[in-house]
């Protein structure tokens, strides 16, 4: 009778498919988002979706009249929204995880931040937080369960085109 082990050849090699009833952790890598089981990190450059349809000539300058983009003057440490208007970042919630809260890290001013959700196959939107100030951790109500197609949208509406600096955001997750 053979020994009940899949370490058939060496201590380091398991032969064949492995079923694990619990979680998988490998060094610092965990199940979750890019090896992170605690939160989804959102870089400032992820805020690439604009609410503006057409904006006034608010970005005048030498050689240009309109740029509806985000821009950085500190090598990406922060971004500014020259045309104002709300900017959005979106993140799929990993399967097996639930998004429970979030925070937008930005200049402490009257800019408004909000978290909503939708799915990639519909135009429905659910709101999970009221409008909050930057740097405020806000709990999601209801929480957002990761089913593979559901994503959270983070919105940031700056009050200033020049002094409102967006540094990034976080969506906190827990195992479902």
């Amino acid at each position, binding site marked *: 009778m053979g*020994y009940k082990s899949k370490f058939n050849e060496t201590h380091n090699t398991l032969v064949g498919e*492995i079923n694990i009833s619990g979680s998988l952790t490998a060094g610092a890598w965990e*199940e979750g988002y890019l090896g992170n089981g605690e939160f989804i990190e959102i870089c400032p450059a992820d805020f690439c979706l604009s609410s503006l349809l*057409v904006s006034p000539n608010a970005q005048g300058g030498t050689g240009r009249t309109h740029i509806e983009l985000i821009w950085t003057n500190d090598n990406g440490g922060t971004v500014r929204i020259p045309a104002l208007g709300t900017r*959005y970042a979106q993140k799929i919630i990993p399967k097996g995880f639930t998004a429970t809260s979030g925070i937008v890290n930005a200049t402490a001013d009257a800019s408004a931040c909000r978290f909503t959700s939708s799915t990639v196959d519909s135009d429905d939107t659910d709101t999970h937080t009221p409008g909050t100030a930057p740097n405020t951790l806000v709990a999601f109500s209801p929480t957002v369960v990761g089913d*593979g197609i559901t994503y959270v949208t983070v919105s940031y509406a700056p009050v200033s085109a020049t002094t409102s600096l967006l540094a990034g955001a976080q969506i906190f997750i827990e195992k479902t």
Partner: protein
Amino acid sequence: MTKTKFHNNFSDVYGEMTITGSIILSGDWQPGYLGNNEFISLCPSEFNLNGQSATPSEQTAEIELISTPDNGATATMPSVGVGGSGEDALSAIKIIPKGFKATSAVVHGSGSACRWEAHSSNLDIGTAVAQTGIDGSAPDVEDTASFDSEVVGDGSNYIVLKWRPRNPTSLLFGAQIFITPV
């Protein structure tokens, strides 16, 4: 002596480990893309690569970007139909996870006569290969299409999904690239 690395308890395995087959977890999270071994989901905001190189007014009136009318549930391409050079299309790019292959995809949205295309490429090369019908043969939005060839994830192979709206009110909901373990 027993060949095992469970030195202290039944839960912790010490040192490097190679598994010749797949890892299957009992929970919802699985190896693949963000815990999903069936498909890669793309949010509307990921379609941020513009097919237009210039419009006549050079953005003095039109926005060349994607916009959302509903807090991110959908995206639109406001500059569709304004002319200029390039193509009325927005594209998203996704690396195929290693150990998986991409076999098909679908782009979700609404609006009359909107189409989508899939192409594959690699970080090391400057050309793309069509994986679905293109131009007039491209699949309609909401139709799933199989790729002409399976795109195996080697760490640098990626899929380009191109959404082709017909007018500025066409809506993009998102997309899925279906994957399966190699």
